[in-house]
């Protein structure tokens, strides 16, 4: 009798202790994140302000700002998305819907999965060799965006394929049975239903791209520039200009990296303020991804 009681108490004890271990493990990561946030906020909050966003970097820490960095980040973000989205989605549609299963597509699939795990600095070397040197693009915005687009392409392809796979076959059958062609079925049924999943993947891929430093430094993005890429819209004819694509640029992570490596205390504060801006950008993008997913999940039920 007492032995059975012991067993029960022991089981209850295991149950409780695992619960505690779980809480402990969860709170460690939370505590570190919180500590990091608080530390950065305490350091950098004072420097944040209109001036910080509107000034170029400077020799004097109090006057330094992140104008060229955040504008560069926005440029890179938009261009990377603009390149990676159509390429990645098309590749995923091809692999999922059109390609025949044979050894060639097997190799392609394995390689795409592997590419997602390649260290980002390798992509920087690729960008340097291919875009900057071979294609003579210099250290331009477009070269940087293409490098990052290749970096996130595997992520976009994989998440798009997952989204397409999750569309029930019954929807395709319904479409085919009414006399729809393959492309009509993809265009009208598969893509609209897969879009929330695809968009979520693309946004997450882009928030990864925004935080990347190594590949851009490798390909030679500048750390200090005191001008912006030429604006894409102008008041005079022809209103739209692509000149900015070929200008030099810097991005937030590079600017932050540059500041933390300086000895002066003031730059550490600038770096903290820059980190806050970068975090806000990635948080906003992640929140947007979650919002999209929620919104469409409510709309589509099978």
């Amino acid at each position, binding site marked *: 009798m007492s032995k059975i009681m012991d067993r029960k108490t022991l089981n209850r004890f295991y149950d409780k202790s695992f619960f505690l271990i779980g809480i402990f493990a969860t709170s460690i990561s939370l505590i570190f994140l919180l500590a990091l946030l608080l530390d950065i906020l305490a350091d950098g909050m004072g420097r944040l302000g209109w001036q910080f966003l509107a000034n170029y970097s400077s020799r004097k820490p109090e006057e330094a700002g992140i104008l060229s960095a955040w504008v560069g980040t926005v440029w890179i973000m938009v261009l990377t998305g603009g390149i990676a989205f159509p390429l990645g989605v098309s590749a995923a549609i091809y692999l999922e819907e059109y390609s*025949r*299963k044979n050894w060639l597509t097997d190799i392609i699939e394995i390689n795409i999965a592997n590419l997602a795990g390649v260290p980002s600095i390798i992509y920087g070397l690729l960008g340097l060799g291919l875009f900057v040197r071979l294609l003579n693009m210099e250290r331009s915005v477009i070269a940087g965006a293409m490098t990052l687009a290749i970096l996130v392409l595997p992520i976009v392809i994989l998440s798009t394929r997952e989204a397409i796979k999750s569309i*029930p076959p*019954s*929807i*395709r*059958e*319904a*479409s*085919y*049975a*009414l*006399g*729809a*062609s393959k492309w*009509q079925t993809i265009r*009208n*049924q598969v893509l609209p*239903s897969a879009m929330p999943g695809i968009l979520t993947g693309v946004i997450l891929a882009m928030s990864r791209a925004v935080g990347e430093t190594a590949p851009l430094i490798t390909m030679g993005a500048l750390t200090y520039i005191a001008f912006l890429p030429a604006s894409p819209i102008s008041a005079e004819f022809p209103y739209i200009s692509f000149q900015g694509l070929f200008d030099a640029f810097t991005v937030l992570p590079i600017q932050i990296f540059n500041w933390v490596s300086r000895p002066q205390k003031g730059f550490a504060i600038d770096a903290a303020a820059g980190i806050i801006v970068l975090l806000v950008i990635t948080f906003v993008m992640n929140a947007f991804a979650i919002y999209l997913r929620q919104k469409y999940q409510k*709309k*589509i*039920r*099978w």
Partner: protein
Amino acid sequence: MDNSAFKIEDVNVFYGDKLALDDVNMEISPKAVTAVIGPSGCGKSTFIRCLNRMNDLIPVFRIEGKIKFNGIDIYSKDIDVIDIRRRIGMVFQKPNPFPKSIYENTAYGLRIQGIRNKSKIEKIVESSLRKAAIWDEVKDRLHQSALSLSGGQQQRLCIARAIAVEPEVILMDEPCSALDPIATAKIEDLITELKNEYTVIIVTHNMQQAARVSDYTGFFMMGKLHEFDITKKIFTAPSNKMTEDYITGRFG
């Protein structure tokens, strides 16, 4: 006699190496209901999916023999599959409306044909929903999501969607197996209604259903068509021992 809708000649179907249909010969009458019955895995779904080339979507599928629709072999090289599927509509086991409005579901088949004329589409949508006996239930909420309908309503919407492209044949693959008895009764009434205009072929698990709605019945087992005759004869005086055992519930 060549007024049959389908003439199936010496058809063998393989999935990879597996023989799924074994030397099937059958003539299906137009404007009548033909039921296909048999135990699970006997090939009845495979059979009906051959008739509108839905099996083409399965990579390992292979067919031998001829399936003639109005005298033309639908598996010959110069046949347009898309045209075949438009002329031979299909309703599936589980209601599968698109995640769109009721109106857009019904109009989809017209839109993919490139029909843009709004009043024409509206007219066809209404007449299709009427023919599928669902108009009165949905006329006030045509622009709500089709997924807000009940299962039985969804299935009738799927029938309306198939009717909208003006097919000559409607294939039904166990259309009531996911529905309750009341919804089933409504679909059965509808099937009897539909045979005035369409050739209907229905696969069913439910022998009473075959007896109630069909004019002809084919009994499949292990990929073979064991018996094919007038429904009344199949259910009262089957000539095949296997058929008799099946319909009297000795197995299946």
